[in-house]
């Protein structure tokens, strides 16, 4: 394994929803290396989503240190963090989260649009990316016209179009049937190898464990086991 892409130390996160207090993360320490595919597994409610939210700068936390590409994200303000995220992180969600009003190619181009890249340039890169995920010909189709697997491929293309160093996938296969899930995982593995990025995949799906370089088990807001 090469250099460290992300590093968390003693992360604690507590949710206060009214009376109840949920200790979602109770001291998480973990390093993510360059070029690895790390899977995060564990029972429902153990804090997996909370952890990746923290790790990607989407959620503030109570204590601990979280560094991404060597930078302490707690030291950034909201705007800096947003820009940083836009440049360095790609996301794939369980529910795809494509914008229904945009065509496939426009969806893929979004991270570039957000970064104010020229439209022609953004669409050219998006088109290449769509081809890489095997969706050439579907450029102008809206999400409602695509199957679940195709939508997730669009989402993957969108997560990768701006060449992020770090890709976060929260249950990328759980809305898909087995076959589509395998295809999506193969695609992800192939692309991070080509692009040299690191990836965290949160999953319940033990049929995709085989794609992992490391599997991190969580329970009750703590890491219980790291398997190679």
């Amino acid at each position: 394994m090469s250099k460290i892409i992300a590093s968390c130390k003693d992360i604690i996160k507590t949710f206060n929803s009214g009376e109840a207090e949920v200790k979602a993360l109770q001291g998480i320490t973990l390093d993510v290396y360059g070029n690895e595919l790390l899977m995060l597994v564990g029972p429902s409610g153990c804090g997996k989503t909370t952890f990746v939210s923290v790790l990607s700068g989407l959620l503030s936390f109570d204590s601990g240190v979280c560094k991404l590409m060597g930078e302490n994200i707690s030291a950034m303000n909201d705007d800096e963090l947003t820009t940083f995220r836009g440049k360095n992180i790609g996301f794939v969600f369980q529910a795809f989260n494509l914008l229904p009003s945009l065509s496939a190619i426009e969806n893929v181009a979004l991270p570039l649009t957000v970064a104010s890249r020229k439209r022609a340039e953004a669409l050219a890169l998006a088109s290449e990316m769509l081809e890489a995920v095997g969706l050439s010909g579907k450029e102008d189709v809206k999400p409602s016209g695509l199957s679940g697997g195709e939508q997730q491929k669009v989402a993957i293309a969108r997560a990768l179009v701006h060449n992020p160093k770090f890709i976060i996938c929260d249950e990328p296969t759980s809305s898909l049937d087995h076959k589509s899930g395998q295809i999506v995982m193969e695609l992800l593995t192939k692309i991070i190898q080509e692009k040299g990025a690191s990836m965290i995949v949160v999953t319940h799906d033990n049929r995709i464990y085989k794609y992992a370089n490391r599997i991190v088990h969580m329970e009750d807001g703590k890491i219980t086991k790291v398997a190679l």
Partner: protein
Amino acid sequence: MFRVAIEMLLHDKTKYLGLLIGVAFTAFLVSFAMSYFAGFMTRGFALVSENPSAKVWVMDSAVSSAEATINMSNSSLDIVRGVQGVEYASPLYLGDMTARYANGHFQSFQAIGVDNATLSGAPKPANLLRIPNSVIIDSGGTDGKLQTPIEKKDMWAYNGSHLNAVTRKLRYGDTILINSKRVVVAGVSHTIPRFPPRPLLYTSTSNFKRLIPGEKRYITFIMVRPATNIAPEVLAKRISKQTGLKAITSSAFKKETVMWYLINSEDVGDMVNMVVLAMLVGFGVTGVMLYMFTYENIKQYAVLKAMGASIKQLTDMIYTQVFIMAVVGSGIGVGISAIFGESISSASFPFRIMWFAPFIGFLGVFIVSLMAAFISIRPIKKMEPGIVFKL
């Protein structure tokens, strides 16, 4: 990002159309109500508009509208005529008269007595008033109130009133009775309808005095035409100063009359309340709809934020959407109000588009849209982008 914002806005055609209709309806309501109101107010100062050459109006110092009046002493005319800069001054006599029709029905009129010599203030052809005991009548915005029987046998019948006789419109040559005195209808005019509507009766000063005898003071207004070398404002001030009477320019008098209606007239008060209520409802609905539109799309904003869109980019998107809605919607609304209003504008339905009607229509929609945008931005600023995982 503008493109994304626009695509987002146009994506759901039904929602977009709903929003558009809401905004257009509000703009329509506002500009229509304002035009309707302006139409009524224009009728409120019809007497002033009807006499465009009278640039200065003189009245008792307590009078503040063309609607509620009290008379001045009869010498005031000569006094005003003596003021330097007055080229020409003629009196206007206002009073209420009740006329008996040939079939026995009666009707009250606002009588307007005009200067014997010049007949200025009477509708054209004013010369008809030179016929002895003659009047020119006018519906003044009313309907079916100027009627006389068709058949001779129903007129002034010796056996009493023929109230159910079939009638036709009064016309040249018909007679009516006022204070038991015979009056000849010399003409029927169509001047500016009044607010509130009332039949009008124009006649000469001498006939006016014959019909309402016994009043000590007759002169209600003195209409002044200034000499060419003096501004109406200046002359008005001079007349006030020298005579102790109230003298104001015709445009100031119109404004005062509108103010008077706003303060004193229950009808206008009700109308204003209704207009304000309609505006508030329209604005409220539009605001809530715009807010809901943004709120429904909050997931999409969260996704954009996760991908690096700054708060400024997101708020710009919302402003873009709201701006487009406001421009298109209020354009449609104001347009429809103009077309609709002009097409149904009539004697019984005043409609006057003045500059402020579309202006307030647009402005109102813009303010409401901005407010809605402003409120919509709050949840977006507050949202934890982490919710993207929970969608």
